[in-house]
């Protein structure tokens, strides 16, 4: 203030300049000074100020620190990233294949086994998925097995502790003389019958034989699709870090990850035919994520009042239950059914048109995606945990029957990751005009349920080959295991990257324990795979996946704590202003006094 006054032009208020300051000064001099402070009160004041500071420093600051710091449990970030990059475990799928040679000498059988194994190894380009042949131990002693009792006996004897699941049983059977070797896949058990003649058995001296290469070819064909699927998944998932560019830049390790997987990739991708790749791609789009439980909802929709009842329980028992039981090792299923009458189409979908050529009412193919009137048909999937698979049986009105899809006359279609629709057209054989029955019997429902069974298999990700259902189920076990391991690994990676990227998110102890348990189960799953115990691997994969999800979706990890700097100032200023100013001013004043005192003492 003083300097400002000095700068003022002296001409502004000359009178005051000359007069007032003097009087003020004289008044100031005349003013009575307060009585000198007692030394005791000075000391007291110093103590008061000190104690305030002590409270602030020893109580206030720690309290502030404790209440505002974020608890972050230690996570094994390095290990998590290794899993995500596919470096911690390279899943391998050694498939054990048993050969039963009831009518061969042991030496011959061993030799055949060796040459076949050689032929197989030559055919296989993909090291992670390979077939291991072995003889059933008592193939010599047991009589020619043709019924399933023997089959189970043999298996039980050969399966020892620590040995893996048997993927396929080959039975070498005597065929009629003079014919070339012939293979037949049993539709209802994982068994391949190979018919041969005695002269096709390779002599012990030769290193290759037509029979061996025939068996190798057949096996390779059977497992081609599975191999392709797994190769595809491996290559897709070794690029996890490539899919998240931001994170790849963050961690230098992912560079190594992609470098190692790059060696694998070319051979894998190139060995797949584009057709097969497209098939696998479609299947992965179509199928649900692996889950321990699926809810099946079967709904009967009809545009008017008939049919008002259906024999669904009996039909399910007879036509669907066997399949569900067969799928039992993979997942559990719950079933709900409903009947919805007077279900109308959505107004944005064109009404079906009559096609004289087909003699049927047709739906446009592009309208199929709007066939389900999502706004009005009650298909809300709010049943517990796990995905709901919807199956819709639509019975058209009598004047709109038969109803088919325009271009190919089909009456059913599949909606990826949602379910299937089947139109039930009444038989028109003997009556000119179709009549919709009031009650659908078990027999009426049979074709629809057959369609639903196939759709269910499709939706669960079953491969199209081989033709044998049990083999397909075993393939599904392995493929699902792989997908669970990849999914859990990628979740671990995501969690690790988030932990690094968002320092403001709290990480409670439960997340750390979930991560730990995920890694344990992933390791177990990986070990099980290596030793060929695929069902055990699936169980471990399931648990690992669930734990990883639980860790990632921990409820208390909500990143709603970003504060820009101006917000922080705005929060702390009102607090620090009134408290901080007196504190600091008091401390300064006291310091000044102490310094002055010391100087005075020195001068004296």
């Amino acid at each position: 203030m003083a300097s400002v006054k000095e700068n003022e032009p002296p001409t502004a208020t000359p009178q005051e300049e000359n007069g007032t300051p003097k009087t003020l000064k004289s008044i100031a001099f005349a003013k009575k000074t307060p009585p000198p402070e007692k030394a005791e009160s000075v000391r007291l004041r110093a103590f008061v100020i000190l104690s305030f500071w002590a409270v602030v420093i020893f109580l206030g600051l720690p309290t502030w620190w404790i209440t505002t710091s974020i608890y972050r449990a230690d996570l094994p970030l390095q290990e998590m990233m290794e899993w995500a990059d596919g470096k911690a475990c390279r899943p391998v799928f050694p498939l054990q294949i048993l050969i039963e040679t009831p009518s061969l000498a042991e030496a011959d059988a061993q030799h055949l086994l060796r040459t076949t194994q050689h032929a197989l190894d030559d055919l296989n380009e993909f090291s992670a998925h390979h077939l291991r042949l072995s003889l059933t131990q008592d193939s010599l002693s047991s009589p020619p097995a043709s019924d399933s009792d023997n089959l189970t006996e043999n298996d039980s004897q050969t399966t020892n502790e620590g040995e893996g699941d048997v993927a396929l049983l080959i039975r070498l059977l005597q065929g009629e003389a003079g014919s070339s070797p012939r293979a037949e896949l049993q539709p209802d058990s994982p068994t391949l019958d190979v018919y041969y003649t005695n002269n096709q058995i390779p002599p012990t001296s030769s290193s290759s034989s037509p029979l061996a290469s025939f068996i190798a070819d057949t096996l390779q064909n059977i497992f081609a699709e599975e191999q392709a699927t797994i190769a595809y998944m491996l290559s897709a998932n070794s690029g996890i870090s490539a899919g998240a560019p931001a994170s790849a830049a963050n961690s230098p390790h992912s560079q190594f990850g992609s470098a190692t997987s790059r060696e694998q990739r070319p051979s894998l991708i190139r060995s797949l035919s584009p057709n097969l790749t497209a098939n696998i791609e479609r299947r992965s789009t179509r199928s649900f994520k692996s889950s321990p439980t699926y809810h099946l909802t079967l709904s009967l929709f009809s545009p008017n009042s008939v049919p008002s009842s259906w024999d669904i329980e009996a039909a399910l028992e007879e036509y669907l239950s066997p399949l569900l039981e067969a799928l039992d090792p993979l997942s559990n299923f719950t079933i709900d059914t409903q009947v919805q009458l007077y279900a109308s189409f959505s107004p944005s979908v064109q009404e079906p048109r009559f096609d004289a050529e087909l003699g049927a009412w047709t739906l446009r193919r592009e309208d199929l995606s709007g066939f389900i009137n999502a706004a009005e048909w009650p298909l809300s999937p709010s049943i517990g945990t796990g995905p709901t698979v919807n199956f819709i049986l639509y019975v058209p009105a009598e004047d709109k029957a038969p109803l088919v899809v325009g271009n190919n006359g089909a009456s059913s279609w599949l909606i990826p990751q949602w379910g299937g629709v089947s139109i039930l057209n009444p038989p028109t054989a003997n009556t000119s005009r179709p009549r919709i029955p009031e009650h659908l019997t078990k027999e009426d429902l049979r074709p629809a349920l057959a369609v639903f069974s196939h759709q269910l298999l499709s939706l669960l990700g079953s491969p199209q080959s081989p033709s044998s259902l049990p083999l397909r189920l075993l393939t599904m076990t392995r493929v699902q295991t792989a997908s669970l391991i990849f999914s859990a690994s990628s979740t671990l990676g995501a969690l690790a990257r988030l932990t690094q990227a968002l320092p403001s998110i709290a990480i409670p102890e439960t997340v750390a324990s979930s991560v730990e348990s995920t890694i344990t189960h992933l390791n177990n799953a990986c070990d099980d795979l290596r030793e060929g115990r695929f069902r055990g691997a699936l169980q471990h994969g399931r648990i690992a996946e669930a734990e990883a999800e639980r860790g990632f979706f921990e409820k208390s990890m909500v990143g709603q704590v970003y504060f820009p700097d101006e917000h922080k100032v705005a929060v702390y200023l009102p607090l620090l202003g009134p408290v901080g100013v007196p504190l600091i001013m008091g401390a300064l004043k006291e310091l000044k006094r102490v310094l002055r005192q010391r100087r005075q003492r020195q001068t004296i």
Partner: protein
Amino acid sequence: MRLLLTLFGLLLYLALASAEHTSNWAVLVCTSRFWFNYRHLANVLSLYRTVKRLGIPDSQIILMLPDDMACNPRNAFPGTVYNNADRALDLYGDNIEVDYRGYEVTVENFIRLLTDRVGEEMPRSKRLLTDDRSNILVYMTGHGGNEFLKFQDAEEISAFDLADAFEQMWEKKRYHEMLFMIDTCQANTMYSKIYSPNIISTGSSEIDQSSYSHHADNDVGVAVIDRYTYYNLDFLETHVREPSSKMTLGDLFDSYDEAKIHSHPGIRLVMDFFGNVQNVEVENGAFWPDDLPDLASRYWHIYTRVLSLHFSKNRNTEKETRSSHGKN
């Protein structure tokens, strides 16, 4: 050369892999309450009606409404909400499903919804159960400013929080593609901090620009819709009439006219987000063999016997834990 081929193969593969999505979801959020904010609720309800018309089922629409205009005592037309002075279309209708209402509409709940960090008690209808095959439309409207959007007079979400939430979704593969649409003042600042891939953003106005309402209904007494939303709806209602529409997002963005909207909308395929997508696979009737049930039942007998011996150890424990598939 080898490397090039490899890279090409990888690119081709990635292109194939990211080609398709199987479900569409919509998150429609209004963030303001009180009668004079009637238009914000009308904005959201209009969008709700549109996506529903184009086929997204209610189970895949998350609707957040902080206030109930239909039952507001100042509403001259009780039980209805209109987005136009002609009052031709009642947005409330008889079939709307509000997932988060009143004071449930908070920043925390919104972020929990996006990141799915919810408790066990949360019903499935209030969760965003998306995966890497889902496209999501996120529409927000309310009062906002530079890099924030106010939630209900009490709190605000910042552009940074939103960006972090989207990043968490991307990391966990919770979306395939996302369309982020926002109608508020200085809306374009809200998406300026987003750093995750596969998000298309569009907003009503630039920084330091207000977003305006379109017109008021004198009988209702307040503005009924915002300009930006109005012209979006105008496009969707007149050009995208059915689920098989082939209009693209580019067409939608091209339709934006600054002279009409009175602010500069920002942009960073329409049915990919607004409608229901189902790439159905039509089956030929003859394709399915009819024998699967028989086959399965025959197989089951053999399989159980094989398994019971094979996995006798595993199986015993499993049988106890396994719940039989019930029918109800």
